[in-house]
């Protein structure tokens, strides 16, 4: 236990039961470490490229440090029992993402993205602080079940009115900023799913037809599920966004399973998902092309058209090998379009190697694990489902995009949480971490002798 923790603990009035350690000191130490690692990466890029520490290193470090410190103080003030790993992981991934984007900016001097990303990161951390300060109890969110789903559907449908960008209608452009409303919709949908399932899980669990060992739900409760499935496919067809629809549907199936404990749901989910995938894969040329590319990443080379993005991405990962080329020394820029967003992981893979890439995957794994742990520790079904839902959201998104760029599954355009360029994504992910901080705080507080409100 850290010294800071002791000081705080002794400052509180004496409690009747044994207090859980709050571990705020550990969080602070880890944050300092995360900031130092990011600054080190920033300096390493400059040293590798120009032989000198980049002039902005101190400012970058100070900026990131102040942001992280303010966030830490907010947690210390309003969520003092929160899991000490969540915030440092967010800081480290965000910091590393800024380093990678800054590094790629050096290859594309005409279109710097790091400054904008820094602004969005600041906004994200600000939102984190707001959520931690304002949302004193996660159960408040249950009141907004239907507001959430309505807002989510509006956010999902708005981009259909805007022109398609690179084959997908998922952006809206406002005053020079492009926003991906689907990103925000993820959190709202997670809230809605958690609240809806927490309220209806009894009906979903026990109303069924039984065909041999397989329990199938009745039509009445199946309705909303089919509705969600239709929305997912609708998103896919209208916005041509395979990744988001996969994410929504996966999230829903996971939460349905956790809420009801019925394997039948998984069977139904898989059946519907594969039906949808096959139908869309056949009908949509955009999606069909993605699947072809996944099956034959080098077909375009053999056809004499040069390597496509996936082939370039694989080349980048392969070049990295075990230890990587070192920050600033790779050639992932050959991937071309979307190298800073969807394909950001290829830069990490090439320059940090399998070692660095595994470390990043494990960081995400740890983040998800902390979310699940909070879910396990919480008592109320809504809280449990929300924690599991948000953690699964991160897990599924990492899997879909990381699996896509490494050739494990068909590639779908999606942002790597925290790492990738994309303001909406960063802000959303900070919100997710803020909610997880709140949930873990409640979880540990309730085990702490009834301090939960």
């Amino acid at each position, binding site marked *: 236990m850290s010294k800071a923790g002791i000081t705080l603990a002794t400052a509180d009035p004496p409690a009747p039961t044994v207090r859980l350690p709050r571990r705020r000191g550990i969080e602070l130490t880890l944050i300092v470490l995360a900031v130092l690692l990011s600054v080190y990466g920033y300096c390493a890029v400059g040293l590798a490229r120009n032989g000198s520490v980049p002039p902005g290193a101190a400012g970058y470090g100070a900026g990131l440090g102040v942001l992280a410190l303010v966030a830490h103080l907010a947690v210390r003030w309003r969520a003092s029992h929160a899991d000490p790993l969540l915030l440092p992981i967010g800081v480290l991934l965000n910091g590393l993402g800024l380093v990678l984007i800054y590094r790629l900016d050096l290859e594309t001097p005409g279109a710097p993205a790091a400054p904008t990303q820094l602004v969005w990161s600041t906004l994200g951390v600000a939102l984190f602080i707001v959520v931690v300060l304002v949302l004193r109890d996660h159960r408040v969110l249950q009141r907004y079940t239907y507001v959430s789903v309505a807002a989510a559907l509006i956010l999902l449908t708005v981009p259909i009115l805007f022109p398609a960008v690179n084959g997908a209608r998922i952006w809206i452009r406002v005053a020079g900023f492009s926003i991906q409303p689907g990103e925000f919709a993820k959190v709202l949908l997670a809230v809605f799913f958690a609240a809806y399932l927490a309220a209806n899980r009894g009906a979903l669990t026990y109303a069924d037809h039984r065909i041999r060992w397989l329990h199938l739900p009745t039509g009445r409760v199946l309705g909303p599920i089919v509705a969600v499935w239709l929305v997912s496919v609708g998103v896919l067809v209208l916005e041509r966004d395979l990744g988001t629809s996969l994410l929504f549907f996966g999230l829903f199936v*996971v939460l349905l*399973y*956790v*809420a009801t*404990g019925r394997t039948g749901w998984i069977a139904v989910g898989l059946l519907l998902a594969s039906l949808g995938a096959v139908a869309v894969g056949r009908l949509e040329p955009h999606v069909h092309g993605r699947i072809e590319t996944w099956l034959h990443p*080098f077909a375009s*080379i053999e056809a004499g058209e*040069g*390597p496509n993005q996936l*082939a370039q991405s*694989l*080349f980048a*990962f*392969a*070049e*990295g*090998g*075990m230890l990587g*080329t*070192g920050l600033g*020394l790779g*050639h992932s820029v*050959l991937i071309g379009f979307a190298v800073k967003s969807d394909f950001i992981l290829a830069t990490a*893979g090439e320059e940090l*190697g*399998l070692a660095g*890439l*595994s470390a990043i*995957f*494990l960081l*995400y*794994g740890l983040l*998800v*694990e902390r979310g*699940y742990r909070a*879910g*396990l520790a919480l008592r109320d*079904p809504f809280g*449990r489902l929300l924690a*599991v839902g948000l*953690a*699964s959201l991160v*897990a*599924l998104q*990492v*899997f879909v995009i*990381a*699996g896509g760029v*490494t*050739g*494990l599954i068909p590639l779908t355009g999606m942002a790597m949480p925290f790492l990738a360029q994309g303001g909406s994504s960063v802000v959303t992910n900070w919100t997710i971490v803020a909610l997880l901080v709140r949930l873990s705080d409640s979880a540990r507080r309730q085990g702490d002798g009834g301090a939960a409100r």
Partner: protein
Amino acid sequence: MTRHIRRAGLFCALLLVALLVNAARVQVLRADAYDDNPANRRDAITRYQQPRGDILVAGRPVTGSRDTGEHLRYERTYTDGPLYAPVTGFASQEYGTTLLEHTEDELLSGADPVLAPLPLWNDFTRSRNAGGDVVTTIDPAAQRAAYEGLRSRKGAVAAVEPSTGRILALVSVPSYDPGLLSGNGRTARDAWARLNADPDRPMLNRAVQRTYPPGSTFKVVTAAAALDAGVVTDLDKPTDSPDPYPLPGTTTRLTNGSRGCEDASVREAFTWSCNTVFAKLGVDTGVADMTATAHAFGFNDGDVRVPFRVARSTFDTTVDRAQLALASIGQYNTRATPLQMAMVAAAVASGGQVREPYLVERTTRAGGGAVSTAGSRPMRRAMHPSTALRMRELMRDVVEKGTGTNAAIRGAVVGGKTGTAQHGLGNSGTPYAWFVSWAQGHEDMEAKVAVAVVVEDAAANRREISGGGTAAPIARAVMEAVLNSQDGPATW
């Protein structure tokens, strides 16, 4: 619910494991295959990320590197590109490398593991050494003399140092500027298309990659074979040969360009280049002895590298007597590269020894430390030393009073042999003019230079194409350039 949360957590863990396993597959197991994919530009980017090592002539680089700031950053440049093109070849980002740029590529590009400070060091640090330099044996004065001597006439010159085999000059005209091909843009593509479409084939290195019928210059080989075989014992004794000479077993009669060849002595026949005498001499010597001597000079050896490959010079070993008669005067299937004929002259000049020709004196690291030096080369005996002495006499006579007087140099002993080779269907082509020679300064212990010149250009007047008239002055200029270099070419 707890149980199901755990199961869902397990599912997420499985996703993580799948990602990790797949990352290991891509980054480690399949990495080599992806790295070697020709569409992967990383190799090229690394290769051109640093300046290429230089090729040096007499201590001065004739190559350079230009920072283009492009993705493939450094491009090759050449000073006097056309002059040294038959030595350097080109190093193109689009079309690969040739000649020295090709054979020494590992060293020049810095990829050669011998440049690494420690074994496997570069594999570990992923660094690449600065490109090493290649120091050539070329004598710039001789090279320039040969190039300017040929001027706009098609042809080639090869010069070697007889005592070592060092190549002093390697010239091919028409030439081209290899710098035009260095880049990867439109200029390079246009130049490539134009050079390949040119009927004069400027990218052909005539000095080593092309064979010509050697014509009368091959009589040096025939005379040496006859002397070694004992067919001729006295150079001044009449040879009992008719003029014209009926080719054995045929009704074809071989004639001479010059008169006085009937029953001439070997000395007279060599001085005035009598076809009849040497055709008969070749037949008298026989296929076996002719072949043995031709092999000893380097004919029929397809594996000569200087370090780039030299085209195979041929002496047909499956000939009847009529064909042997023609082969012995450098016609029929007898063909030789200019470099091979320079080696023939060098063998006479150095007491019958043939040294393997070489172009790279040594290779160095970027800092100047030696990586490798030429060292001693294998040598073989082409003829008996006493035969070599008599061949020297014969070749001196040619320059002093015969067909090669144009090659005489004041203050030096010069031996030579002219040649005018017929070719084409029914010998209709413009003849190739040949001259092979060696020179030794009066104060020198040994011959300093042996040279072979071939001029293939079509002249307005067919009679002007002759070894003595066209090729000998070029050979003289090259030999003078070598002799005038302070104590020979710079030694390293």
